[in-house]
C-alpha cells in the first residue's frame, strides 16, 4: 500500500466504525453544520471546562469523508485547549486527515471543523 491508499483505508475505518458517535450528555457547546450541495450533515458536541475540551462527540449523516473527518476530529480535540481548535487552519486539518480530496469534496472534509469552530463561538 502506498501512503494514499493507507489514508483512504484510515478514512474507511473511521467511516465503518465511527469514534465518539452519539449524544454527549455533558455538552455545553454544539453546532450542526450542513452542506447544501449534498445534504451532508455533522452535529458536533463539545464539553468545555477551564478552556479545555474535556470531551467531544458527534452525530451526522453523509458521505464517508464527512463522517470519517468528524470521527477523527472528535478524537483529536479531546483534552486540547480551545485555542488549539480556534487556531487550526483548513489546510492543517486536511493535512491531518491525510487524504487528497478534490475541491468538491473538500467541503465534506471540512464540515466537522467548521461545525466545531462554530460550536465554540456559541459556547455557553
Amino acid at each position, binding site marked *: 500500500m502506498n501512503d494514499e491508499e493507507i489514508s483512504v483505508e484510515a478514512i*474507511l475505518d473511521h*467511516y*465503518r*466504525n*465511527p469514534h465518539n*458517535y*452519539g*449524544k454527549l450528555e455533558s455538552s455545553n457547546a454544539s453546532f*450542526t453544520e*450542513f452542506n*447544501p*450541495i*449534498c*445534504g*451532508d*450533515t455533522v*452535529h458536533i458536541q463539545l464539553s468545555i471546562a477551564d478552556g479545555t475540551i474535556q470531551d467531544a462527540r458527534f*452525530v*451526522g*449523516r*453523509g*458521505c*464517508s*469523508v*464527512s*463522517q470519517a473527518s468528524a470521527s477523527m476530529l472528535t478524537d483529536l480535540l479531546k483534552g486540547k485547549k480551545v485555542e488549539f481548535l480556534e487556531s487550526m487552519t483548513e489546510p492543517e486539518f486536511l493535512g491531518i486527515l491525510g487524504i487528497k480530496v478534490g475541491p468538491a*469534496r473538500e467541503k*465534506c472534509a471540512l464540515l466537522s471543523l467548521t461545525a466545531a469552530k462554530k460550536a465554540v463561538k456559541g459556547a455557553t
Partner: protein
Amino acid sequence: MFDPVRVARDFPIFSRGDLTYLDSAATSQKPSSVIRAVEDYYSCCNSNVHRGIYRISEEATELYEKSRENISHFIGSTDPTGTVFVRNTTEAINLLSYTLGRKLAPGDEILLSVMEHHSNMVPWQLLRERGVVIRYADIDSDGKLDLEDLKSKISRKTRIVSLTHASNVLGTINPVSEISRTAHEASALFILDAAQSVPHMPVDVRSIDCDFMAFSGHKMLGPAGIGVLYGKQDLLSDLPPFMGGGDMIREVRLDGATWNTLPYRFEAGTPNIEGAIGLSAAVDYLRNLGMEDVRYHEKDLMSYVMKRAEEIQDLIYYGPRDPEIHGGVFSFNLGDIPAFDLESELKGVRRPESSHELHPHDISSFLDQSGIAVRAGHHCAMPLMTRLGVQATSRASFYIYNSRKDADKLFIALENAKKAFAR
C-alpha cells in the same frame, strides 16, 4: 433505428476513451457538427447582427434568423417570431415570472408541482412578495404526478400552471396535453418547462397547446448560454418588456422609448449569435436521428436499466416503473438515505455502523475512478428530496450516445462500490 455506439463516434470527447458519460440530464456532449458550426461562423462571417449595412453582418443576421426558423420548426411552431432566444431555461422562466407577475394581484394563484426543478420554482416564489399564492401538486408513491391533487388545486384563482414536461430526478413524463386542457378550462395560462423533454422526445407546441415553453440548448447537443422561450404570438405581444437596452427598442427619446416587434423586444443587447447557430446544428443532428427513435432508444435503455437494477440488493430507485412514462433519467440510492433528524439521531435510534447504506457522494467518487460520470446530490430539486424523504440521490442519465454497455459498466461498478464500502 440508430446505433448509439456509432452515434458516440460523432462526439469528439469520447475519443478520450476513458469516459462513460451518464450525466446528460445536467448537460449533453456535443457532436462535431455543432462544434464545426460555431467554428465556421467565427471563421466565415463573425459580426454583429441586425446592425451593419455590410455583407458579413447581413450574412450573420441571416444565419441567426435561419437558426431561429429551424429551431422553431423543430418544436412544431409555424411562427418563428414566437421563438425568443434567451440564455437557458432558467432565464426563460424568470422572464415569464417577471413579466406575467406584473399583472398578478394579491390572492392570485400559481400552480406548480413538488417535482419541479428549482428554476421552475424559485422565480415564481419571488412573486409571493406581491401576495401571489404558490400551490404545489403532489406526486404519488410511484413518482407520477397526482392528477387528482393537481385538479383539486386548480380554481378560478389559478392564473398560471407551470409544470415540467419530464422530471430531471424521477424521469416521470407528465401528461401535459391533458393538464394544458385542464389549465385552459380554468382560464389559466399553461407554461411548460421542457428542459428535459425537447432533447429527448418529439415535442409539438401546437398539439400540447402550451402558452409558453422553455428549454436549454446545452442539454440537447447545443452550446451553453443559448436557450429558447417559446410563446404564443398574442400572449408574447401582451407582455411588458423584461430587460431594456439595444435591439429591444424601436425608438428611444430622452423621455422614453417604444418597443421593437417580436421576438426582438425580448432580446435586449447583442445576442448569443454563435449559440443560436450551434443550437440549430444540434437540431439538425437530432432531426436526422429522428426524435421518435431518440425516445425509443431511451425507453429501451431504461427498460434494461430497471431490469438490471432489480438484481442489485439494497438498490432503491425512484420514479415510475413503467418505461412508457419514464425518460432516460435513473435516480437511485444504495440503501435508504433518509433526511437527517437530529433528535432521533441523538436518541441513538440508528447506529451508522450497523446500516448498509452508501452515500451518493461516495458512489459518485467511486464511479469516477472507473471513468463513470454520474451526479450526486439534490439535483436542484430540494423540495422533491424532502417529499421523497431522502437526503440526496445518485443519478445516471442516458442519451443517444449511451448503450447497454454503459449501463452494464454502471452496475458492475455499483457492485464493486458495495464491496469497497462494506461495513
